[in-house]
């Protein structure tokens, strides 16, 4: 029995391991003929993608490796491989956290917090430093935050420009710029692309929209946009000699960032609604009294019925009524003679941004009223016919906590955005046509998404959810959304150039990133 010890058995089994040859397929992968696709009339060997964050693979509020791997051009390049496509170099961030370790505004990506049902920043530290410059050239020349004219912007890749006021450089281009003085378009052209995609212009209007039109970002002027787009596409396409594809920009009412928080999300029970209505009656009364006093030159004795009527016309606009159920929020607006308090209730089509402070809405009466005990005491005094002191009246007036301009797109702003978007898309369309380049109608695709797009394994939707095409930031697409968009690009490329690029299966790409 001695030979039956564990060691001997192990030796026998190890010996068997050698003779245990691996099973072999009839047609092993490495011997199988590679199924090639036609590139049609074009050459995909050096595809360069020009665009903004949507091209870079920005998602979940950050640029991170997984997002970059699943970006529109990266997926497109993947499908081009079978049709003679070359390597697609991506300026990868250092990690899957996203953001920069040394730029506080560019923090970690968002993840969905299941316990609380909201997106929250990933609890991790960014390791990408702006001081680390990447060497080499990159096929993905998508620069997050870029506008159309930045292609030609001097110092756009100069680190010194990051700290100027306003900043003249973009950290994402600083990372990859071949020299501090090079322009973005120079670094594109020097690669001598054989095929390109141009998807710029979104931020020329979107930056204004995401900032709530608060004045921190301007809509690019039509002249500047025309010049930048025409110049950009002309140079990148070598005046139409180089094949490529151009994409247009979406309408903001198809972007979840603007459509997720409804303007009537102030949901009240009967008692709260009555209290709030009561509050604004008191508020309205105070404004009427105050206005009358001003009109009477500060002398209460001089308040005539006419003055009172005039004052009432001003004060009564604040007698907002609230009903049980959803109610529209109160927003800040311009202080004018007819609206001296500079507040009003939102109207039907006005929009709120996704990043609005939801906790403040729930807890601090943001968008309505922050009723403190002191305010309640004044209201009680008013209800019993008392006359409030100036101080008490101000307590009531200041209790209103309207939404800041930066959180709201009002009708004026929406009109500006709609007009600019339409104009910009016309310019993109005309410029593409002028250089014989096909246009991918991203605007129409996102509109189609509103009703859901059948992807074979279910429906791809808009909004923010498990079936959505959007990442958690509500602006950028998630991998599945990018896969579907890639298929649309492929469709246009195949139709235009006679290629046979194969579509992706969007269901094989994930949607929401859960914390």
């Amino acid at each position, binding site marked *: 029995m001695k030979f039956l010890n*564990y060691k001997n058995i192990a030796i026998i*089994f190890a010996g068997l391991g050698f003779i245990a*040859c691996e099973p072999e397929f009839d047609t092993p992968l490495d011997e199988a003929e590679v*199924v090639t696709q036609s590139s049609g009339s074009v050459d995909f060997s050096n595809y360069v993608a020009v665009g903004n964050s949507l091209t870079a693979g920005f998602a979940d509020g950050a640029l991170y490796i997984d997002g970059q791997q699943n970006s529109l051009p990266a997926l497109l390049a993947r499908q081009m491989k079978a049709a003679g496509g070359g390597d697609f170099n991506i300026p990868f961030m250092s*990690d899957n956290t996203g953001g920069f370790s040394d730029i506080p505004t560019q923090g970690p990506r968002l993840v969905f917090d299941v*316990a609380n049902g909201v997106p929250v920043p990933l609890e991790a530290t960014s390791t990408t430093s702006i001081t680390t410059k990447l060497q080499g050239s990159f096929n993905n020349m998508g620069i997050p935050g870029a506008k159309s004219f930045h292609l030609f912007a001097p110092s756009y890749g100069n680190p010194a420009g990051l700290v100027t006021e306003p900043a003249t450089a973009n950290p994402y281009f600083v990372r990859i710029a071949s020299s501090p003085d090079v322009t973005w378009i120079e670094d594109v052209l020097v690669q001598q692309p054989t095929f390109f995609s141009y998807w710029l212009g979104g931020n020329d209007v979107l930056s204004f929209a995401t900032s709530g039109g608060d004045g921190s970002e301007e809509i690019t002027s039509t002249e500047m946009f025309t010049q930048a787009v025409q110049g950009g596409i002309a140079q990148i396409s070598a005046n139409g000699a180089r094949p490529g594809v151009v994409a247009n920009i979406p309408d903001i009412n198809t972007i979840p960032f603007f459509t997720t928080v409804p303007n009537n999300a102030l949901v009240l029970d009967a008692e709260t609604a009555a209290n709030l209505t009561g509050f604004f009656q008191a508020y309205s009364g105070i404004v009427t009294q105050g206005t009358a006093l001003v009109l009477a030159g500060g002398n209460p004795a001089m308040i005539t019925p006419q003055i009172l009527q005039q004052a009432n016309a001003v004060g009564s606009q604040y007698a907002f009524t609230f009903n049980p159920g959803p109610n529209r929020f109160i927003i800040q607006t311009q202080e004018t003679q007819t609206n001296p308090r500079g507040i009003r209730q939102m109207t039907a089509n006005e929009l709120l941004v996704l990043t609005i402070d939801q906790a403040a809405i729930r807890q601090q009466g943001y968008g309505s009223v922050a009723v403190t005990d002191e305010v309640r005491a004044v209201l009680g005094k008013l209800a019993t016919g008392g006359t409030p002191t100036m101080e008490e009246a101000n307590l009531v007036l200041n209790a209103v906590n309207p939404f800041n301009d930066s959180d709201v797109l009002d009708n004026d702003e929406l009109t500006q955005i709609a007009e600019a978007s339409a104009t910009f898309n016309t310019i993109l369309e005309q410029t593409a046509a002028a250089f014989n380049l096909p246009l991918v109608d991203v605007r129409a695709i996102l509109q189609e998404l509103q009703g859901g797009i059948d992807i074979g394994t279910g429906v791809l939707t808009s909004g923010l959810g498990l079936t959505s095409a959007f990442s958690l930031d509500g602006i950028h697409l998630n991998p599945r959304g990018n896969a579907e968009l890639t298929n649309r690009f492929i469709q246009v490329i195949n139709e235009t150039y006679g290629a046979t690029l194969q579509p992706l*299966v969007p269901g*094989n790409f994930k949607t929401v990133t859960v*914390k």
Partner: protein
Amino acid sequence: MKKLILLAACCLGSYASYAGGYRVSAQGQRALAMGHTGVAVVNSAELAFFNPSGLVYLENKLNISAGVTGIISNTQYQNLSTRQSAETKDILSTPFNFYATYKINDWLSAGLAVYTPYGSRVEYENNWAGADLVNTIDLKSIYFNPVVGIKLHENLSVGGGPIFVTGSVEFNRNLFREQIPSESPANVDLQVDGVTAWGWVASATFKPSDAFTLGVSYRSKIDIEAEGGDVTFENITFPDTEFDATLPLPAELTLGFSVQATEKLLIATEFNRAYWGAYDELSIDFTNPNVPDSRNARDYKNATIWRVGAEYNLNEKFDLRAGYYFDESPVQSGRFAPETPRNDSHGFTTGLSYNINEKLAVDASFVYLYFEEIEESYVNTFRPDVPAFSGSYKSNAFLFGLGLTYKL
């Protein structure tokens, strides 16, 4: 003998699935060498597993059989259109068996059988193309089965006994299908051990003559019901939770006969019916309601195995054995999950016994398992949003077993 038990205990690694589903047919070195036929082979204590009713026909008072089988199996996956490929890691797995029987009197025999009929260890490279279906699975079970055999008539006996099972399961997969593998994929690891369950076995032997034996045996289905198993999530934060899941170890009916063709040659044939229909889904219930449950369609079908084997008594020292079996996969088209990536298989078996003396023999067996190449896909009917996972699979396995037979 102590040493042998110790050896068996040491080898309690894991057992690769090499038959249909996660059934591991290696319950006796002598039987294995002759196509794993045993229900109608009255030869050794291996009957305690194959057919306890036959124990009464054993000549000796005390019979002991023990053995361990080393299995090296390999599965290759490839998809010519996506150009993805993967293979399972070669892992040595070691199912074992220990049988002791005692003839109490002329009509009654009793015994104890310890064996490992179900188990599976499949380990793919992490983040392979099908990582959202399985990265690794490791199922272990040990059956403790006291048996009795009762001779009703000179030609007829019945037998059976209760089965106590202890089992453990570990299962690891990624949470999302990602065509482009993530740098930090969300992953879940499930672990439970010490799960116990009960079942039974019943059998009968009809022996109309010395040369002819007919045997039938039925082993009941046993559900491994895991409760409160450990759950570890990686790269994803879910609330703390445990899991409950049930894995069936299906019932099996065996019918077979043997003929002593000549003084030296025994021929046996056997038919197994494995009631895999019991495995319709793998449902993992996370006890925390905030963690979505996982339901995975299996829809296995009952499957049949045909076996044939022969034993030739060369001389006083050597008995030679050989056999063949055809093992039908219980997996249906469209449900080919990579966790049990096996198709119909052909088993070619051989082996021998070396009789050291009248009491003690060493048994050896060798099996080559050939699996037909198959192009298949897996569709989870509970997850219509996840596209089918398709590709070609090709597997093989080598088994090498050693055992001892002792008779007194």
